[in-house]
């Protein structure tokens, strides 16, 4: 009994502490993710306060956090939105992949982490944080802006890219050869196509299986289905996260909306736990050696995301200021970069320092992203003013 009491106190302290950190984060206008990571760094191995007795729960909670993050990412866009989004923004989407995956891959190769490490870091620097971006756009009152649909359709494309990327990553992390990797690419492309077709044509039936007018029954069914699919996927050597993500895409319409509403608080809870556990498993002393690389990556990938947004917005005939805003909005990286790094770390297939680099990188980008979105207008105006006399 005594052990349970201690565990409860520790867990309560962790959640309460995270609550305080989250409040502080929104107060100063940044995402709470970096503060959760710092919280984890402070608690874990080599940190200030070691935690005992709740590791097992925390690990499982973190795993559920990843599943919920990916499930809600899948729920966010309907299958038809994904398809039209891909049609409309595939050029900008490809520019996004090339510009933002390459810097990560290059740094990983430079550090001698091999092709697997390069693929992991490519994902970490590529994927924007749709959570942070949606929140920032809403806070800044930019949802009515003409460049906002451009930003959103890039996020939709990244969403689809994840569906292809995650199975490949899982196969590579499990030690697949080049042929095995290519097979994984083929299989994942087929699976995502099948899931999209099922969601478009038979989404009603998938939704019907989990839907219920009682919120309680509905919550249990959706959560149960997600954990079941994730568990089975994990058993089949496909990552649990991918299973949950594909389930999210398959559930559609009003069921998806209701599920999102019900699951959001749960996701926030478990995802917070996931960030803490990721921080826990990262030894803070491994960060300083890679800090220089993290800063360089942050600098380069800020510019590449701005370029992506600029390019995509220009294609849609949006003015210079709007292009700058679209670029700056996309800068934030967050939860999914950590999810990717987390998959790699759990598989023990990459250099130990990768966790440190990913942590430092996301710490920088999750803070930098909202700041960039905020300051872009005055900065762009200042630059315009400076440039005008020369061009005139």
């Amino acid at each position, binding site marked *: 009994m005594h052990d349970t009491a201690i565990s409860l106190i520790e867990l309560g302290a962790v959640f309460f502490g995270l609550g305080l950190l989250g409040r502080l984060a929104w107060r100063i206008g940044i995402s709470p993710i970096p503060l959760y990571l710092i919280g984890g760094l402070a608690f874990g191995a080599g940190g200030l306060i070691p935690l005992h007795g709740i590791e097992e729960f925390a690990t499982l909670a973190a795993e559920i956090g990843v599943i919920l993050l990916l499930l809600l990412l899948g729920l*966010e*866009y309907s299958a038809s*939105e994904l398809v*039209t*989004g891909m049609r409309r923004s595939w050029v900008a989407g490809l520019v996004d992949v090339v510009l933002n995956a390459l810097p990560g891959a290059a740094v990983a190769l430079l550090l001698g982490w091999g092709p697997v490490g390069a693929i992991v870091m490519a994902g970490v620097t590529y994927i924007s944080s*749709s959570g942070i971006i*949606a929140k920032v756009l809403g806070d800044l*009152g*930019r*949802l*009515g*802006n*003409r*460049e*906002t*649909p451009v930003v*959103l*359709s890039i*996020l*939709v494309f990244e969403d689809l890219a994840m569906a292809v990327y995650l199975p490949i990553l899982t196969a590579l992390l499990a030690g697949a050869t080049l042929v095995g990797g290519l097979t994984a690419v083929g299989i994942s492309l087929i699976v995502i196509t099948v899931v999209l077709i099922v969601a478009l044509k038979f989404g009603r039936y998938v939704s019907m299986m989990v839907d219920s007018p009682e919120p309680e029954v509905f919550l249990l069914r959706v959560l149960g289905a997600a954990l079941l699919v994730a568990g089975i996927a994990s058993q089949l050597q496909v990552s649990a996260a991918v299973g949950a993500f594909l389930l999210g895409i398959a559930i559609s319409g009003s069921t998806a*909306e209701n599920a999102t*509403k019900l699951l959001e608080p749960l996701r926030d809870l478990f995802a917070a736990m996931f960030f803490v556990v990721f921080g826990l498993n990262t030894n803070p002393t491994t960060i300083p050696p890679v800090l220089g690389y993290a800063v360089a990556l942050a600098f380069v990938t800020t510019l590449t995301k701005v370029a992506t947004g600029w390019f995509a917005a220009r294609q849609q005939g*949006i*003015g210079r*200021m*709007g292009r700058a*805003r679209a670029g700056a909005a996309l800068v934030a990286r967050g939860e999914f970069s950590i999810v990717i790094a987390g998959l790699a770390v759990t598989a023990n297939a990459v250099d130990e320092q990768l966790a440190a680099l990913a942590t430092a990188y996301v710490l920088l980008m999750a803070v930098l992203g909202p700041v960039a979105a905020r300051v872009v207008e005055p900065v762009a105006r200042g630059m315009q003013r400076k440039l005008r006399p020369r061009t005139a």
Partner: protein
Amino acid sequence: MNVEVTPLPGLGTRQDFVSRGGRRIGVITYRDGRMEMIVSKQDDTDSCVASIPLTVEEGATLAALLGAPQLVTQLEDQHKDFAGITTRQLPLAPASPYDGRTLGDTALRTRTAVSVVAVVRNGTVHPSPRPDFRLVAGDLLITVGTAEGLSKAVEVLETG
């Protein structure tokens, strides 16, 4: 009028049009039914000077306020065959002595020969109000009469 409908993936839809002055005006409808009115900036029409959340009731009120002149135009169209008859909308000022009193108390019909054909309140049109219709400051009285009668009616509503 060319209303552009743009899907906002994951959020809802944006519907807007460009006004004659070059401003984008429109509405964002979120998936959960919430609505926001948006107005673009003058110098940078890509961005918004304001996006104002409106409840269903507020949206309907705004729509009716903007639609009220159209009601007057319609009535004018109907009366244009009769020379000398004009339709006007007269607001009931907060300082009016008839705030809280009935339409019959104003005795508009007997004093100015003006008819009140409708009252617009909070976006709802009350057609053909009876003499016991209680007026409230902010009401818009849609009136029909001669030009002379109408200017007299303005005076009556202001000063009693």
